[in-house]
């Protein structure tokens, strides 16, 4: 089995992604099967994936870990993705966030962009496309080259 859970308890500190060999990614979605399979696939591609199945869980994880990128669903039961985005934009304004949702509409996409999302992708999304987008964003924002 591949280790998918980020176990480290590193204190959130200054951003310097160069220190890490792997990209640390937070994946937030209440669709557990989806989270699990994406996590597996990304891990296989050398990502360090932290899974969160709700908004509050995601916020807790962010307090613990300094992520390079986050992928968030919009419609979640406990806390709406937009709410999470709002909080994230205050907590970690420099964190690039990709919105990946099945409830895609232009209005939702605009709203997500407004609250700091850097990219908007509709489910079901081609995995290669998602992968490429993540890479591009990481290179742009953090100078990561080793993916």
């Amino acid at each position, binding site marked *: 089995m591949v280790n998918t859970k980020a176990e480290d308890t590193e204190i959130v500190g200054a951003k310097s992604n160069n220190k890490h060999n792997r990209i640390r990614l937070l994946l937030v979605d209440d*669709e557990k*099967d*989806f989270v699990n*399979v*994406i996590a*597996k*696939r990304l891990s*296989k591609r050398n990502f360090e994936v932290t899974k969160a199945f709700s908004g509050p869980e995601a916020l807790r994880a962010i307090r613990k870990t300094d992520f390079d990128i986050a992928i968030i669903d919009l*419609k979640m039961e406990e806390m709406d993705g937009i709410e999470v985005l709002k909080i994230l934009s205050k907590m970690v304004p420099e964190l690039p966030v990709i919105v990946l949702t*099945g*409830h*895609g*509409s*232009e*209005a939702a996409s605009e709203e997500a962009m407004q609250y700091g999302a850097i990219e908007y992708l*509709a*489910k*079901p*999304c*081609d*995995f290669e496309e998602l992968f490429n987008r993540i890479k591009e964003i990481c290179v742009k924002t953090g100078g990561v080259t080793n993916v």
Partner: protein
Amino acid sequence: MKRRLYANLQRKIIFVTLLVSFIPLIFLSVTIYYQFAQMFKGKIEEQISYRARVQSNSIELFLKERTAILLAMADAYTFDYLSDKNNLEKIFRIMNNRVGGFIDLGLIDSSGKHVTYIGPYKLLNVNYYSEPWFHEVESKGVYVSDVFMGYRRVPHFIIALQRQETNKSWILRATIDSDVFETLVRTAQVGKTGDAFIVNKAGFYQTRMRFGNEILSKSNLNPTIFGEGTTVQEKMNAEGRKILYAGRWLKNNNWLLVISQDATEEMTRLFKTKQMEIIIVTAGCLMIIFTTIFTTRMTIRRLENSDRKMNELNAQLVHSDKLAALGKMAAGVAHEINNPLAVIAEKTGWMEDLLTEEEFQNSQNLGEYKKSLHKIEEHVERARKVIHGMLGFARRMEPHLEDVDINKVINETISFLESYARTNNISIIYDSNPDLPIIASDHSQIQQVFLNLLTNAVDAIGKDGTINISSKRHDLEISVIVKDNGQGIPKEYQSRIFEPFFTTKKSGKGTGLGLSVSYNIVRNMGGTITLESEEGKGTIFTVKLPVVVPEKK
């Protein structure tokens, strides 16, 4: 069914309107005619009875004058004097000079012998003792006889009077010229058929009638039906014509002066009035019928039109409601399906990832696994497209306004399909229309509409055909017509063509959303999209978009 309803309503309205118009009109015209006829008849009767009265007066006067002069002569002269033929002739001349109308004059002694006679007949020495008039004179003193034949065998009547001298009595007798008398009577004749004559109490003619009768023949008129004064009676004659008779008794009720008048002749004027009235009433009726039918038809037609418009509006409302409900449902379904689809897609991807690992490389069925996974991906993609279409349909956002050049949009859209069309030998013809204004609209949405229409047209043709696109500018709208010579749309499908998920394409070929999405886009822009289609000949879609002038930047 509908048509019959309106036809029924029309019939009822016409029937009721005609009924309420005709009943008073006919009642009124009949009453007026009846009153007029009564008045007219009254007038004729009055006229004829007036003539009878006047005529009877003059006849009475005629008789009185002659009686009076005869009386004067008898008073003035003695029997001896009168028995001289010369004297009697002189008197006869005086009488004829003064009043006229005498034929002869005779003196008769008490034994009835005609003593002296002046006149054309050979009546001298004739004895009148046994004649009925002789005794009438003896008993009454003065006597005007009925017409009789007498010795001369010619109808005539006499005025006779008796005078008493000391030892004897004598009678002076004059015969009235019946021509003069008849002429007098007949002055009361009027019109072509009017008549005036006299009958006695027993009903024998005393004067000749205008047409026919023999004097002294029996009249078929019963004198007893005529009462005192002047009486007017109505009788049918042998020819079936209605004759009015005015009768007035003369000469101490011995003679009846009758003035007859053909009522039919007099009534001609009434008939003319009747004809005129009938013509006017008929014309009125025709006008009422015409106007009623015309106005009722117009009203019914308007009613039908407004009903139809209302029904159309209702149908549109129902249609939009249906679309809105379906749209909401589609959106819900789409969202719910996207998540499982995403899981399926990712699980498939994960399996593919795993297949790259060494342990699977030697598996006999590796190729089959890969193929199956690939198929799953293909079908997930297919499902994703359907869902995407549904979401597009459900999208209820306001169009995003930008400057749109319809010509450019159409040409761009054509270019998307050009190579496909060329390989299938389909020519798409559009001459850019320089009149089209730049409008404020949503470029991509309009492009989606035309793309849907053109894709449908291409699919409808299949191979070998032409798509003609034309555009026109009206005052407030732009119309774009997309015409293909493809297979056409069957009539029964035409009303459902804009419904979501309605498609005639093979399963998997079309989602049935293209036209309903286009319909919604155009509707949201305030335009319309309509179709005309004939099976086997082709289809014409007309898109009308309002001209919205872009704001100046």
